[in-house]
């Protein structure tokens, strides 16, 4: 999309193309399968048959190249932060990040004395949706994902940015 992104004046055709693209992107946000700590267990539970992420079009991919969404599930240690950043950079555009759980959002229980924990994954990668919980219930994660889908749907990938 790099060549065409934000290159067109707003008109009927572009607007409907935008809608189509938004629909296509928001209904198949494949997520990148990696977990860092206890929250990852809940992410696995969400992807399993009881809550079934495939219901909302999310398929786990093992490679960042094939993924659109990165769910940062768990404690981001200083050592892992570099890897998280690298993995994020390897993902193809458009890419989205979900910060799942207290740890990824702000360091969580380690925010004060955790010498080894990154105080929020938004310090290294831009985060789209923050999901609260320690760990978040699968329902809470799905709610966050639905919120992300709304956000993707509202995007205008082709229209020129004004101001």
């Amino acid at each position, binding site marked *: 999309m790099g060549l065409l992104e934000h290159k067109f004046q707003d008109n009927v055709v572009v607007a409907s193309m935008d809608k189509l693209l938004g629909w296509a992107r928001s209904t198949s946000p494949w997520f990148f399968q990696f977990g860092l700590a206890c929250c990852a267990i809940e992410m696995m539970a969400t992807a399993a048959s009881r809550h079934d992420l495939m219901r909302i079009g999310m398929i786990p991919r093992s490679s960042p190249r094939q993924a659109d969404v990165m769910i940062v599930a768990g404690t981001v240690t200083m050592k892992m932060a570099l890897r998280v950043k690298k993995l994020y950079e390897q993902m193809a555009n458009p890419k989205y990040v979900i910060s799942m759980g207290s740890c990824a959002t702000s360091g*969580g*229980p380690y925010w004060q004395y955790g010498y080894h924990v990154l105080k929020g994954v938004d310090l290294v990668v831009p985060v789209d949706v923050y999901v609260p919980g*320690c760990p978040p219930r699968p329902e809470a994660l799905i709610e*966050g994902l639905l919120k992300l889908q709304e956000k993707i749907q509202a995007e205008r990938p082709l229209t020129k940015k004004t101001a």
Partner: protein
Amino acid sequence: MRAYLRTIWESVSTLVTGMTITWRHMVNIRKGNVTLQYPEERWPRPERDIGFDQDDYNVIRSRLHVDMDDCIGCLKCERVCPVDCIKIETEKVDKGEDIPDVGHTGITSNGTKKALLLTRFDIDMTECCYCNLCTYPCPEECIYMTGGPNSEKHPIDYEFSQFDRNDMVYRFAKEASEEQVEKATCVKNGEKKNG
């Protein structure tokens, strides 16, 4: 010729057998279906108690809520929190007096006279580990997880994802300007009381 016909018969009959199974599953799709259709249905609240004293108290892990009219500012919850995500600041006021300016009520619903005005009561839900520890020591039982003992007043709420991290810091203290607080407090400015 015979072999030819038998091949046709076999392909048709196996197809029918297979399609019967498929059809049966399609008709019975709601039976034994484990998937929760999330936004429409959700898990029921687990029915269990914590095993001591409070029979009716259900350990629930959801968003915290504070009834500010009942809070006496004793800082017990702040002190017990293992991750220090509750931040409270108080000012001394006349005991048991209502101060309508800053929305302060003098007497709690348990009948305790309040001597402190809460100027700040922040809970950072991004740091909270939902351990419920802050809810036990509260003498007024005014801090609790939504959906817990006061579930009629505050229905359970554990899905509150945000686009911005700062939206998850919940500020429960009543809005009041500095002048209003200064007017309300009996301790003069300069020796600011903090807990």
